[in-house]
Structure formats: structure tokens, C-alpha cells
């Protein structure tokens, strides 16, 4: 049946060449139109099974909570400059617009870069935990500077010096830093005033705000980096808007950066990263495909010693790939991180079919066959192997559709169907090209073939040599396989996502900046809750976990009614004390000793706090103290408090006048601010400002989002990633985000890979059995493949590679790819009557060497990809394809030697 089919194909090409070419053009145009509708997704969650709870929840969260996927602008530079930069940038960003379905829409609904000071002024003290409120209560009882400083000292001695554990957690360390920042603002204001600079109401406001709720900007601990969270008007699932929106925001940012030469800024967050990964992946795959295309073409021209046939082969391949992409668009509609590589894979594998056909055809023409006879003979002899090899590889890929992960499932489907498309084009397109070319050559030459013998005689000799020393060959093959098996058993699995993500992208580099400057990993987990109470409960449960650094959720801004009730007595005491506290009388130089005494006490308290923080390893607190009192070591920042004391003790009259003016502005403001903050009225959801509600709840305020930050690096230590994901799973089975998704992906891909390998091996063997109808031949063809896989893993280990979630896919893939060599050699050996070993290796050996080299070039080109994960897969398959060629030659030559029919 196959013979009849192939004969008919040959007839069609000989008799109806024009019709075939016209049909090809129409089919190609149709698939090209389909291919243009293909989209791309770069989300890791899209690799998990579609019904995986983490995927479902992740997609729901990014759909419901625009804040979960905000644009993050990271600004770096001098403190005052970046604050000014942010003040100007925020309104400019809000003006950014993009085209959407014919309309122009805003990219952003809001830009958050300052704390909600209005809300904090009204309810700030109600948000403080009872215990912390009790500890800090005295600070809020007297607005006069000397009394205030005495109260700050009292609180510091009680809380930070008196308790070694007060700064032992992330949350407490942050509170301590905020308090020190407030003190720093006050010291700066006092220093300025006592030096004779007339205090302004704004300076008094800054000092009051600094003490009461810290720096309102989202600024790093070292004050060198600032963050703006830009909330989009669309969800991350709107890929077109994500791309256009990112570019619009980047344009605004670039424009403003031109006016601020000392400032550096860039975009990060899920949307910019998706944008960058997509843009750079496309570029990257574009040039890697081009590298592969050119390298393969050059290789074919050099080895086949002709240029027309290789150009035909590549043309045929391009047409096949267009068909494949069109079919992909119809089958799945979207490429994911894994299936993006299909072009390169098809380049490497699809060219093999053409090589076998061209090789057979030119050999027959060189032998003097007519065009018709040469084509019929080629399709009958090489065509069978090409069909078997192509189907085996395609079905091997298609077995991956049994995978539960969408990544592997779609990879199998897309590559399998793609290979079938290229296989079809090889039989429908290439022969027509070859026939046209040969007719033209004949007409020029007036008959005769003129083709030269391009078989690889050295390979024939090598095959004959190995077959004649069958025991030696087999022993060497087995020994090498055992050595590789030992190496393979020692290979590790790299679970570090950072090692597979694209290198050098600004959006990704800025994630590290955020981690370094804010001590916050952007690889956080997300949990959604059905109510504020549930959010509070889940957030609290997460904070109790050792693997969690901190959480963010709406309960920070909305204490429960019970908590509010407990805080009210303290707030009432504060109100009573503050209402009763007199505003200061005129400050004179007679008041200076008391003030100076408290400032000296403050200096000592901060020094002691700093020493404890240094010994305790609380670097953020230590650094905050350092900006106030320096260190005992030389070359450290100056002791600003000592400098203030010196100023106060120097020009006493000037200092007293300055302090009097400052106190006159500061104290009334401090008093009214505290009274306003100590609001005892019940706080309910509706009281929260929209920016806070939007940040933590969905549009109809029915669901609430909890962000959970890990306490360690989830990528540097695989066991920590598992622990963090397990801990969250125990708190809520709905936990999702990058850590749970990636952990799940590692597990799912691992299981899928094993299952796909076993099934692929079974199916490949059945196909071989059906093709050869001889179990010994089927076993003969599959043994080099099995050994080739072992060699591949062994060589990976020897070349310093490890498995990753991407290159582990190379194992089932190599089963489909590597089998071709054995199939073609065994086919040729059988068709040569199991006799001419020299001919088998000189001719088919040449073809499989060429296909091996072209496939290696295609996969090798992935090494130049910006996606390090693609490079790792390319490197693994590069090694694997080469290994399969070597095992095929070694094992099959020995087996043929044992068959005893060599010549």
C-alpha cells in the first residue's frame, strides 16, 4: 500500500508538476493566514494543567485583582531628586494611553507611590497593635520638644534597649527603622532651626509626619531607591494591552529620564516582564532560527557539493513550517514558553526528511537513472524510511499529549503535528522542485545526468571496519554505555528558576534591585480570601510560619471590631493626656540644658540600640542608627546627634531662638495631629480610601488579596522553595503565585516526563515492529536509541549540565528524534539484502550524519537564546542527537558484523 502511494506521488510530480505547485501555493497561503492569528503567552502558570488549582486560582486573581499584576517603576538616585522625579512622573504616567479596538484608553487607573497620609492622619493610631500602642503611648502625650524627647527616650529604653527581642523579627525591625527615620527627621529639623535657619510650616509638617508615620514615599531603607506602583486598567490576560501599555509607560519614563541625568529608572513587575520576555523571546528565537537556517544551508551546500538542492530543501522546509504554524494556530491558538521553540525544533528535524530524499535522488541520478526512475526509486527506498522515521518521531512527540501539564502536552501536540506537516510538504513540495530542476538541467545539457557521487566513503569504511571487529566494537559500545550510565546516575536537577530565565533584561534585573534595596522578593505568593476576617486570619497564619517574612493584606488597615475595642482605652488615654498637655511657652536659653540633656540621652540610647542591632545582625536597624550616630570606627558617617549637641552648646542664643521658632510651629501641629490620629470612632471597610481598597480587594469588594513574602531565597535552596510552598498549602489550599506554581511545575513536569518516556518508548517500538515486521530488526533499531539516551544524560553530566524544568523535556524528545538514525540504517541494510555494509554506511550513513549535524546545528543555535532555559534544552539535545548518531554507528555496525553478511 505504501509502495502504491509513493508511486502515485512520484507520478503526480512527474506528470502534473504545475498542478502540484499551484496546490502547494494555495495550501501555503491558507496556513499563512491561519498562522498570523497565533498568539504567545509567557506565563509559567500556563504550563500547568488547565484545571490545576494553582493555575485556576492564579488566573482568577490576575483577572480580578489588577493590583496583583501592576507595573512597578523602580527609581534610583539621590533621595530628594528621586522624590521630585516621582512627584512629576506619577501624573505623567496617568496620561499614558493606548489604542484598544479603535478606542484610545488609559493605561493606568492609579499610581501609588506615597502612603495614604490622609487616612493615616485620621486613623493612624487605631492601626497600631495594642502592645505596640502601650509601649509607644507616652510619646503621644506631650507636644513640647523637651518632654517629647524625654518620652521618646523612655519608650526607646523600654522597648528597644530594654528588650533584646524587640527587633528580632522583620516586622519589628521595620517598625524600629521607621521610628529611627522619624527621629532622624526631627534631628534634622532641630539642627536646621538651631543653626539659625528659619523653620517653615512645611518643615514642621515633615517632622511631625516623620515621627507619627514615617516617610510617606515607598522608599528603600537606604533612601536611594523609590518605587511607584502603577495600577493598570486591564488584566494581565489582555496580552495586546500589556504589550502596548508597557511601551507607552516606557516612553513616558524615557522622556522624563532625559530631564533627570542623575536618575536611573525602569519598569518591572509581571506585565513589563511578560512584555520583555515576549519581545526578547521573539527576537531571540528569530535570530537563533536564522543562525540555524544559515548554518544548515551552508552545511548542506558544502557536504552535498551543490547549492540548488539545499536551497530547495530549505524552501521546502519553510513551506512545511508555515503549514505547521498554521495547524498550530488551529489546534491550540497560542504558543507558550515551551512551544515557542517549535520553529527551531522543526528546522532541525524537518530538514532531515529533505536530506534523505535529496541524497537518494542525487545518488540515483549520479548512477544514470532517468528523472522518473530516480524519483520512483528514491521515494520507494528512502521514502519508506523517511515516512517511518517521520511518523515515529511525530508519534513520539504526540504521546506527550497524555501529559497532565499543558506545557508538555502542547509541546507534544504542536511539534508532532508540525512534523507531520513538514513530512507532507516533503512529499508534496520537494519532489516537484527536484523534477523541475532536473528537467531544466537536462534541457541545458541535452540529456545525461551529470550528477556526481556524493556518498561518504569514509563512513562506509568506518562501518566496515567496526563490523569486521564486531566483538571489539560491541565491547567498546557497552563499556562506554556503562560509563555514561554511571555519569548519568549522578546528574542533578537545578530547581533555581533564576538559572533558566532570560539574562540581562532590565525588568528582571530590577527585581534583584527591589530585593536588595527593600529586602522584598518579588517572587511572592498570593492567597485570596472571601472576607476581611478570612484575610486577617490567613494573613496571621502565614506570618506565624518560619518560611514567611511578612504579609500584606487589608487587615493591616482594618483592625477587627475586637481589636479596635481593645485599642480604644489606650487611644482615649492618649487623647486625654494630649488635650491636657499645654502648648509650650517661649523657649529660651535657660531651657537649653534640659533639651540638650534629653538629646544626649537619645544619643546614648541609639548607640546602645545600634550595638545590640550589630551584635544581633539586624543590619537595617544598625544602618538606620548609623545615619544618626555614626559608628565607633573611622570613616563612617558623622554623628549627627553629637553635631546637634555641639550647635546647641555653641551659639546658645541663636540656637534657643531657632528652637523656639521651630517649637512654635511644631508643637501645635503635633498636638492636633495626635488628637486626630487617636480617633476612637469605629473603623469600617467603607472608611478605607479607594487606593487601599483597590490594592487589596477586587472591584465589588467581595474578595481580598493577601501577598505573602518568603523569608529566604526560594531559588537558591530548593528545600526552602518546597517548605515555603508546603507551609502555604497547609494555611490555604488556594495559595498560588510564582513559588507554588513553580514547585507544582517541577513535580508535574517530572511525572509527565517519566510517563511520556515510557509511553514513547513503547509506541516507538510498536511502530518499528509494524514497519519492519521483524522483532529482531525492531530491537536492532531501538538499542542504539536506548544507549543514546544514556549517553546523552552521561554527556550532560560530563559537560557540567543539570536537568531543569525546561531541558528535562529533552528526554522524551530525544526518543522521537534519535530513533531516526537506527530506522534509516536498518531499512537500508535490509533493502541492500543485509549485505553491503560499506554501501549502507557510505550512503545512508552520510544521510544520517548530515541529519545529525543539521539537527545539532538547529538545537545548538538555541544556546544563543536570551532565554537560558532554551539554551539549556538546546545544549541537552545537541549532545543527545550527537550521542544517538554515535551509538547507532557503533552498535549497528557491530550487529551487522554478527549477522555475518558483510562484504
Amino acid at each position, binding site marked *: 500500500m505504501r509502495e502504491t502511494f509513493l508511486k502515485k506521488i512520484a507520478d503526480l510530480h512527474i506528470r502534473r508538476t504545475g498542478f502540484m505547485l499551484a496546490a502547494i501555493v494555495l495550501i501555503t497561503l491558507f496556513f499563512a493566514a491561519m498562522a498570523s492569528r497565533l498568539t504567545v503567552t509567557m506565563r509559567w502558570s500556563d504550563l500547568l494543567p488547565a484545571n490545576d488549582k494553582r493555575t485556576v486560582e492564579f488566573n482568577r486573581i490576575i483577572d480580578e485583582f489588577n493590583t496583583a499584576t501592576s507595573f512597578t517603576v523602580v527609581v534610583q538616585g539621590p533621595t530628594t531628586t528621586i522624590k521630585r522625579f516621582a512627584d512629576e512622573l506619577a501624573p505623567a504616567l496617568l496620561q499614558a494611553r493606548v489604542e484598544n479596538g479603535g478606542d484610545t484608553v488609559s493605561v493606568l487607573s492609579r499610581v501609588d507611590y506615597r502612603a495614604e497620609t490622609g487616612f493615616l492622619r485620621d486613623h493612624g493610631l487605631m492601626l497600631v497593635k495594642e502592645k505596640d500602642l502601650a509601649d509607644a503611648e507616652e510619646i503621644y502625650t506631650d507636644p513640647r520638644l523637651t518632654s517629647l524627647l524625654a518620652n521618646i527616650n523612655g519608650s526607646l529604653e523600654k522597648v528597644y534597649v530594654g528588650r533584646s527581642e524587640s527587633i528580632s523579627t522583620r516586622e519589628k525591625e521595620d517598625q524600629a527603622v521607621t521610628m529611627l527615620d522619624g527621629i532622624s527627621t526631627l534631628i534634622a529639623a532641630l539642627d536646621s532651626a538651631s543653626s539659625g535657619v528659619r523653620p517653615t510650616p512645611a518643615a514642621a509638617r515633615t517632622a511631625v509626619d516623620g515621627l507619627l508615620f514615617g516617610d510617606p514615599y515607598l522608599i528603600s531603607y537606604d533612601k536611594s531607591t523609590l518605587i511607584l506602583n502603577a495600577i493598570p486598567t486591564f488584566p494581565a490576560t489582555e496580552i495586546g494591552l500589556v504589550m502596548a501599555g508597557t511601551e507607552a509607560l516606557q516612553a513616558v519614563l524615557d522622556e522624563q529620564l532625559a530631564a533627570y541625568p542623575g536618575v536611573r529608572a525602569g519598569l518591572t513587575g509581571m506585565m513589563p516582564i511578560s512584555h520583555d520576555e515576549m519581545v526578547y523571546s521573539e527576537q531571540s528565537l528569530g535570530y537563533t532560527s536564522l543562525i540555524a537556517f544559515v548554518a544548515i544551508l551552508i552545511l548542506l551546500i558544502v557536504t552535498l557539493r551543490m547549492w540548488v538542492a539545499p536551497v530547495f530543501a530549505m524552501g521546502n522546509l519553510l513551506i512545511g513550517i508555515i503549514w505547521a504554524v498554521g495547524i498550530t494556530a488551529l489546534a491550540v491558538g497560542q504558543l507558550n514558553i515551551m512551544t515557542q521553540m517549535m520553529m527551531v525544533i522543526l528546522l532541525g528535524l524537518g530538514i532531515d526528511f529533505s536530506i534523505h530524499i535529496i541524497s537518494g535522488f542525487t545518488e540515483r541520478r549520479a548512477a544514470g537513472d532517468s528523472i522518473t526512475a530516480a524519483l520512483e526509486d528514491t521515494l520507494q527506498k528512502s521514502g519508506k524510511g523517511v515516512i517511518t522515521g517521520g511518523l515515529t518521531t511525530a508519534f513520539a512527540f504526540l504521546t506527550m499529549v497524555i501529559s497532565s501539564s499543558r506545557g508538555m502536552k502542547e509541546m507534544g501536540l504542536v511539534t508532532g503535528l508540525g512534523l507531520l506537516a513538514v513530512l507532507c510538504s516533503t512529499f508534496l513540495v520537494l519532489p516537484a522542485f527536484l523534477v523541475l530542476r532536473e528537467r531544466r538541467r537536462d534541457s541545458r545539457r541535452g540529456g545525461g545526468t551529470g550528477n556526481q557521487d556524493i556518498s561518504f566513503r569514509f563512513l562506509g569504511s568506518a562501518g566496515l571496519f567496526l563490523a569486521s571487529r564486531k566483538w571489539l566494537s560491541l565491547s567498546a559500545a557497552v563499556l562506554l554505555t556503562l560509563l555514561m550510565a554511571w555519569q548519568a546516575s549522578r546528574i542533578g536537577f537545578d530547581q533555581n528558576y533564576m538559572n533558566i530565565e532570560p539574562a540581562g533584561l532590565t525588568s528582571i534585573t530590577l527585581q534583584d534591585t527591589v530585593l536588595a534595596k527593600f*529586602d522584598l522578593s518579588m517572587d511572592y505568593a498570593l492567597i485570596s480570601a472571601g472576607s476581611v476576617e478570612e484575610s486577617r486570619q490567613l494573613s496571621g497564619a502565614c506570618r506565624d510560619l518560619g518560611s514567611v517574612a511578612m504579609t500584606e493584606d487589608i487587615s493591616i488597615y482594618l483592625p477587627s471590631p475586637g481589636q479596635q475595642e481593645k485599642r480604644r482605652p489606650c487611644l482615649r488615654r492618649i487623647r486625654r493626656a494630649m488635650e491636657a498637655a499645654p502648648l509650650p511657652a517661649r523657649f529660651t536659653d535657660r531651657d537649653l540644658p534640659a533639651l540638650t540633656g534629653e538629646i544626649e540621652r537619645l544619643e546614648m540610647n541609639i548607640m546602645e540600640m545600634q550595638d545590640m542591632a550589630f*551584635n544581633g545582625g539586624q543590619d537595617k536597624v544598625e544602618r538606620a542608627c548609623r545615619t544618626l550616630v555614626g559608628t565607633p570606627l573611622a570613616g563612617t558617617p558623622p554623628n549627627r546627634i553629637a553635631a546637634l549637641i555641639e550647635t546647641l552648646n555653641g551659639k546658645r542664643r541663636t540656637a534657643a531662638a531657632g528652637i523656639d521658632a521651630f517649637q512654635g510651629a511644631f508643637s501645635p501641629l503635633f498636638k492636633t495631629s495626635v488628637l486626630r490620629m487617636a480617633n476612637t470612632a469605629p473603623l469600617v471597610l467603607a472608611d478605607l480610601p479607594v487606593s487601599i481598597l483597590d490594592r487589596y480587594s477586587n472591584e465589588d469588594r467581595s474578595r481580598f488579596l493577601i501577598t505573602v513574602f518568603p523569608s529566604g531565597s526560594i531559588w537558591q535552596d530548593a528545600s526552602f522553595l518546597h517548605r515555603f510552598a508546603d507551609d502555604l498549602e497547609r494555611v490555604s489550599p488556594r495559595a498560588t503565585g510564582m513559588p507554588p506554581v513553580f514547585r507544582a511545575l517541577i513535580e508535574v513536569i517530572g511525572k509527565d516526563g517519566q510517563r511520556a518516556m515510557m509511553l514513547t518508548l513503547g509506541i516507538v517500538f510498536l511502530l518499528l515492529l509494524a514497519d519492519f515486521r521483524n522483532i529482531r530488526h525492531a530491537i536492532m533499531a531501538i538499542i542504539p536509541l536506548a544507549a543514546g539516551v544514556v549517553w546523552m544524560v552521561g554527556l550532560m553530566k560530563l559537560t557540567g549540565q543539570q536537568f531543569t524544568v525546561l531541558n528535562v523535556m529533552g528526554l522524551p524528545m530525544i526518543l522521537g528524534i534519535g530513533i531516526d538514525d537506527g530506522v534509516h540504517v536498518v531499512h537500508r541494510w535490509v533493502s541492500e539484502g543485509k549485505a553491503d555494509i560499506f554501501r549502507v554506511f557510505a550512503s545512508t550513513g552520510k544521510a544520517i550524519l548530515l541529519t545529525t549535524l543539521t539537527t545539532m546545528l538547529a538545537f545548538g543555535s538555541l544556546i544563543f537564546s536570551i532565554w537560558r532555559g532554551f539554551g539549556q534544552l538546546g545544549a541537552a539535545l545537541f549532545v543527545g542527537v550527537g550521542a544517538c548518531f554515535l551509538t547507532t554507528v557503533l552498535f549497528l555496525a557491530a550487529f551487522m558484523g554478527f549477522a555475518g553478511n558483510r562484504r
Partner: protein
Amino acid sequence: MTFTRSTTCMFILLSALGPRLLQAQAVTAEGIVERVNRVMSPASIYCRAKMTITTTSGETRTFVYDSWSKNHGEKNLIRYLEPVRSRDQATLMLNHADDIWMYFPRTGRVRKLATHARRQKMEGSDFSYEDMGSGDTFVDDFTPAIVREETMRDSLCWLIELTRKPDADISYSRCLMWVTKGSYVPLVIDYYPENDPQTAEKRLIQKRITLVSTYPTAMEMVMRNLGDNTETVMEILDISYDLDLPDSMFTERELKR
């Protein structure tokens, strides 16, 4: 901080039980724990130790300090030698660390720490006061049982499970302790938190067990916090037992010396 350093002495003592005293006893879980417990309260110790912590920025910081202990751990004094930033800082702990004073040479002040922080993670380290097993905690707060005998780091050990007694005021729900059969030194102790008795929170590993005088002594101790994924290493540089330490050493005035 100072509590952290003081644990060195406690751990040294933990491994310093004279094996001769143990030979005649019948082997029961209670008996083993009793023996282990005794090593925590030798009469007096002096040691110089090095401790490396991981700071919140992920950097490592190493301290060297001298430490003295008297009356079976009831009085402790610690004085820092390195780094320069911490030199001469000192901590005095009396009444089994219920009363703590710290001396800061930079300000010349002595401050009494107000809070009893037994359950807190001690500053910068992965040790807490409870981890020291100070006093008789293993005997008083836990019910012991021999799980099995097994080899741990090439030494035949009793694996002892310590389950918290119902009214015990201790944060761990249970501990697993691998005690060497020859010397009664616990090589490894796993600590399980109150809220999850199945997942170990921390692991103490005692290494380089060396006989000092008549006491088998762990010259290196590693406390791994399995939840935070951090670890603290303590290394003994010099140690001696059974010294005659005057009471005057353990006073507020002596802190300022």
C-alpha cells in the same frame, strides 16, 4: 545577644558528662535523659568561643568572646573580644538568665534588660534560651522514651523522644535526641514546634567531640533553623572546667571592668 553567647557554655556542659558516673546505672529513657541533663550543670566553666551568625542582609558576622559560668549555670558572664565594634561589651546573667544586665563601653552605661525572653529567637542567632535546655528542662518538662537504637554519624546512639508534659511551660511540643551510647553526648537534637509536632523546626548538631579534662566536649555546634533556612555555628577555641571563680566576678560592677 549575650544570651546567645552564653549558650556556648551550656552546650559545652551538655556534652561534658563524665562517662564513669554513668556506667552503673540501668538503661532507661529517664536514666539516659537524667545523665544528659547532668552535663548541663557542671560547677564552673570558662571558655573562649567563636560564633558566626547570618545577618538580616544575608552577610555573615563572626564574634569571639570569653564566657564564665558558675554554680551549675546559675551565674554567667560573657565578654566580647571581637570584632572591634563589639569589644568589651559584656553581659551578666544571674538566676539562670532571669536577670540580665548589659554593659555598653561606648556609652559607659549598664542597662538591665527588662523582659524575660526565654522563647524568643536570640538576636542574630538561631538559638533560643530554651534550646540550651538550661536547668532541668529535659527532665522537668518532657516525658522521655527510647525510640530505638541507631547509628548517627558513625556512632551508636539511643534515639530518645521527649514529649512535652501537659502543663510544661515550653514552646516545643517534642524533641528527638540522638545520645551516644558511649559518652551520653547528644549528637543531634531535633526541635518540633508547638503548632506542628510532625515537622522539625530546628536541628542542633554537635561536632568534633573531644575529651577535655574528663569531659567529652563538642568543640563545634551548629543550630539549623529549618523554617528560616539559616544556621548559627559556634566553635570552641579554648575551654576549661572546674575552676574556682569568685562571686565578685558576677556583679554589675565587674561588668564595667
